[in-house]
């Protein structure tokens, strides 16, 4: 079973170890990842981890892009466990959080020397929006990938393996962002998007509640 949850301070060491895995990961993440930035990201609630048998096997960082977007950042999975849809599960986790926050889209930025993510992202509903030519130091292009959350494309939830469970909470600050986004959309005359966000919110809340219940049930041996 794979559990997806927000990272806590105790996870920082394991996250850093995966990020700096020397065989392949470190070069795609743009170099050695220091511990202090990971701590800061974990503290701000912007890091999800994948856990198997009490061990961290993957992580994904996503930073707020204003109130309206979520910018995907570092993501890595233990080399031995790749191609088991752990990254997919992590990204779907961010999709659920984005819905709870009323965000309109997820954005990812991929350097052209990364062979993996351009194959993963279309399966999750991302499409390339902008190709910034020669944007990074080594003359490589940087592609901005975009996935709309409005209308909610819930189909990607079914790409998550049945052995994955989410333990996410519907936090107060998510509610705040959701209501501010509602006001912003209304002020822009986008009532249809407000309606879609509410539909997404309700279905996501239900999904998150169900996943959390299943998680609690598995933890206490089915006695709930």
């Amino acid at each position, binding site marked *: 079973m794979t559990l997806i949850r927000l990272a806590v301070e105790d996870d920082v060491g394991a996250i850093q170890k995966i990020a700096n895995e020397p065989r392949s990961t470190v070069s795609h993440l743009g170099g050695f990842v220091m511990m202090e930035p990971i701590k800061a990201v974990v503290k701000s609630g912007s890091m999800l981890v994948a856990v198997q048998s009490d061990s961290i096997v993957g992580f994904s960082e996503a930073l707020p892009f204003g109130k309206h977007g979520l910018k995907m950042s570092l993501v890595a999975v233990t080399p031995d466990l790749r191609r088991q849809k752990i990254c997919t599960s992590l990204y779907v986790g961010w999709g659920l959080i984005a819905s709870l926050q009323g965000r309109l*889209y997820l954005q990812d930025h991929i350097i052209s020397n990364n062979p993996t993510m351009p194959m993963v992202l279309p399966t999750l509903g991302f499409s390339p*929006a*902008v*190709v*910034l*030519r020669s*944007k990074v*130091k080594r*003359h490589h292009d940087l592609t*901005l990938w975009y996935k709309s959350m409005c209308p909610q494309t819930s189909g990607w939830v079914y790409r998550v393996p049945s052995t994955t469970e989410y333990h996410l909470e519907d936090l107060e600050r998510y509610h705040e962002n959701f209501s501010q986004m509602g006001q912003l959309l209304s002020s822009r005359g986008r009532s249809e998007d407000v309606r879609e966000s509410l539909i997404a919110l309700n279905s996501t809340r239900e999904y998150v509640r169900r996943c959390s219940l299943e998680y609690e049930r598995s933890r206490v041996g089915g006695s709930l």
Partner: protein
Amino acid sequence: MISVSVLQKHSVDDKYVWGKRNGDSYVDWPKFAKAKIDSGLPSIIGALDTETGESAAVGFHYRRTSHSTDIEWWGGDRVDLVACILRAMVWSAILEGRKRVECFHVTEGRPQIDEAFLDAGFKFEGTHKDYTAKLEDVNVYGHVWLQDGIPEPSSNSHTNLVYNDRVKFYHEKNLELYKKDIDLHREDKKGITFATHIASAVGTVCNLPRVSIIRAPGWHGNEKKSVSV
């Protein structure tokens, strides 16, 4: 005749420019422009049609990275004027040792000047929906002079560029950073390093027809802020 020059403090006071920006009427823009100009680097470039008195302006937004710079539209809706400015911005970026100029141009509440980017040799790189905090879409234009070539000045314009100590300081700093990047420091298939490409591009810009380079140590009475190289 179109006169293109780096905006200086007195230009703002002289109302050489155009009042408030379209779509951003809340901005006290002359005050904002003065603060930006005070940075010591060429910040806003203006173009004036000396016959009609029409004008336009585009500014550098930030220079956080060593290799690229982001620009933003400030005012004016005449495509030919904006195109002249955009060419000047590419030349200015070359003098600073940068390889890319980009603009995330908001499509809403702004004049239709997209054609100016294409005229100046920029390439359309895509559209991003709901990009800004106000949920405005942007069209992204980029210019990479190594791929797209150095733009030629238009026949009816004259441009004054600034190559002061601040610009030279950034040029040197950027070359130092490139040296740490193995791919840029390494010779390409023709045996040329990126530093050589930049030196050659700076030479080309300095020798463009109808382009004057002002080589003042500092500028607009701001010499104390100049940095020696």
